[in-house]
């Protein structure tokens, strides 16, 4: 810093440590509560140091929430969303940056508009389309009396229903676009001189250069998908087969009002299970996470 201020340095550390305590306390308390037995977790005041029942509680929450199956679903779902976003955004950004045609700006704005309305805002109409993904084509043909030609395609309770509507926004396109715009023109010129077509240039030059961006986008999208709540809740109609991790939390909420025992130790163990995948990914890949977040500004 600019001047020597021992007193202020102490204050600085005090404020930051206080912030650290406040921001980490909920995670710590979840962990502590998940490590005590039923009697201890309901004691007043709640203990601040972990107990010895973490593994028992995790095991009980794991079985009660069927997390074995649920975690597989969640991972497939999150990986599907991640892969879809990373690939589709790269393709469309390439088409918007490296070609010149009349519809280009129309496409650009069509894609851009999707950033304004996340799925949570439009769940009701999106649900109708998920119940029959060919509905738009059916409805359009129905105008000329040919509605019957289009079959129904129900996406409820399927991976495509979970994943496709979430991919249908342009979060990644602008990250790639910004990056492609910084790539020197000489690269494309050289590629053209060498007789490489656009596909060649995309695969052999752009994709390898974009690895950093892809890592950043993939990290953000994976955590984002893991954290989805309301869309899975609606599109998954059979919780026995397709439930995702966040959905299972609702099942383990203790409601003492309805005479259920307050098994907070198990509920907090389940919370811990649900928190862990996105937290671990964030801890391991934070460098990419922040880079993607800051350069795309979401």
């Amino acid at each position, binding site marked *: 810093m600019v001047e020597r201020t021992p007193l202020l340095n102490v204050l600085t550390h005090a404020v930051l440590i206080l912030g*650290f305590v406040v921001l980490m306390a909920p995670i710590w308390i979840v962990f502590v509560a998940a490590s005590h037995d039923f009697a201890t977790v309901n004691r007043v005041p709640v203990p601040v140091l972990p107990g010895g029942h973490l593994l028992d509680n995790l095991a009980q929450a794991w079985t009660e929430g069927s997390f074995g199956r649920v975690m597989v679903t969640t991972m497939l779902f999150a990986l599907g969303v991640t892969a879809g976003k990373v690939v589709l955004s790269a393709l469309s950004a390439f088409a918007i940056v490296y070609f010149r045609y009349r519809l280009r700006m129309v496409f650009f704005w*069509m894609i851009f508009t999707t950033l*304004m309305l996340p799925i949570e805002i439009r769940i009701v109409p999106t649900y109708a389309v998920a119940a029959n993904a060919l509905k738009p084509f059916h409805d359009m043909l129905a105008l000329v009396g040919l509605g019957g030609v289009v079959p129904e395609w129900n996406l409820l309770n399927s991976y495509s229903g979970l994943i496709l509507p979430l991919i*249908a926004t342009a979060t990644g396109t602008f990250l790639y676009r910004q990056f492609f715009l910084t790539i020197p023109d000489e690269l494309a010129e050289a590629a053209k001189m060498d007789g490489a077509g656009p596909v060649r240039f995309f695969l052999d030059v752009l994709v390898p250069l974009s690895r950093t961006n892809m890592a950043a986008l993939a990290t953000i999208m994976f955590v984002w998908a893991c954290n989805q709540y309301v869309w899975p809740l609606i599109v998954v109609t059979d919780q026995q087969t397709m439930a995702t991790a966040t959905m299972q939390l609702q099942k383990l909420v203790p409601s003492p009002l309805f005479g259920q025992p307050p098994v907070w130790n198990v509920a907090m163990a389940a919370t811990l299970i649900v928190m862990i995948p996105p937290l671990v*990914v964030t801890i391991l890949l934070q460098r990419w996470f922040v880079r993607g977040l800051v350069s795309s500004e979401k």
Partner: protein
Amino acid sequence: MEKRATFSNLWVAGLFVAPQLLLIFVFFYWPVGEAMYWALTLEPPFGGGNQFVGLQNFEAVFSDRHYWNSVVVSVIFALSMAGLSISVALVLALFADRRLHGHQAYRFTFFLTYAVPAAAVGLAFRFLLAPDAGMVSVVNKLFPGLWNPALNGTQALILVIVAQAWKMAGYNFVFLLAGLQSVPRALVEAAAMDGAGVLRRMRDIQVPLLTPTLFFLLVINITDSFVDSFGIVDLTTGGGPARSTMLLGYKIYLDGFEGKDYSLASAQTLVLIVLMILLTFFQFRFVERRVHYR
């Protein structure tokens, strides 16, 4: 910015952009259009085709006192949550920017709060602030019945505000710290030479220069408060008690999927869509050249 070197094979461009366009057509534009259609029609309870009813659904929405209750609750929620979260993050960022020992560790740990799923945040805070267990139970031991978010609407609203503010604090911190680090060092040093103390410099130089970031974060926090509210509300209060935490988004979810009233839910969806578009517009209007984060 434009590329000088471009490719001319437009078929390839079409093929590259087609998958994304197809997806956003089916799962974005068509549903949004359909919401408009539904909002203007009513499905008769005994079948017989949809009926065009004009703005009747909107009238129903706007004359419903429950809807206005949700508007008020959502505004209180969004503004106090954003205010709380951003001011905590601002204080932390101002001090972390002093770059004493270990300032990078703070950025690393604070940001973790953003990675926790809203549903998990909801359940964690439900426990933390439960009347008979968790942290606040001590208060009830001393003053029995003082704190009970299951019965007291104000306390329930405080519960969801604190939960969402906690979730956003780390995110706000990362952006504010990045904003502070782009404030020219020379400016701060010059002020120091002129005898401005650290707190004075924060108030008169650093915070004013952060205004674009603060505004950007305000808009993002408000938009996120519509998006994350489902998970938080569903796992803490379920909209209650007595609709005191019935946020706009959560009401749409209940009306559409529990009440099965698609017309009413669609009309509310459209109102929310307009609100989101306005928020985005403001964000661009006022923060055209947003701060450089590097």
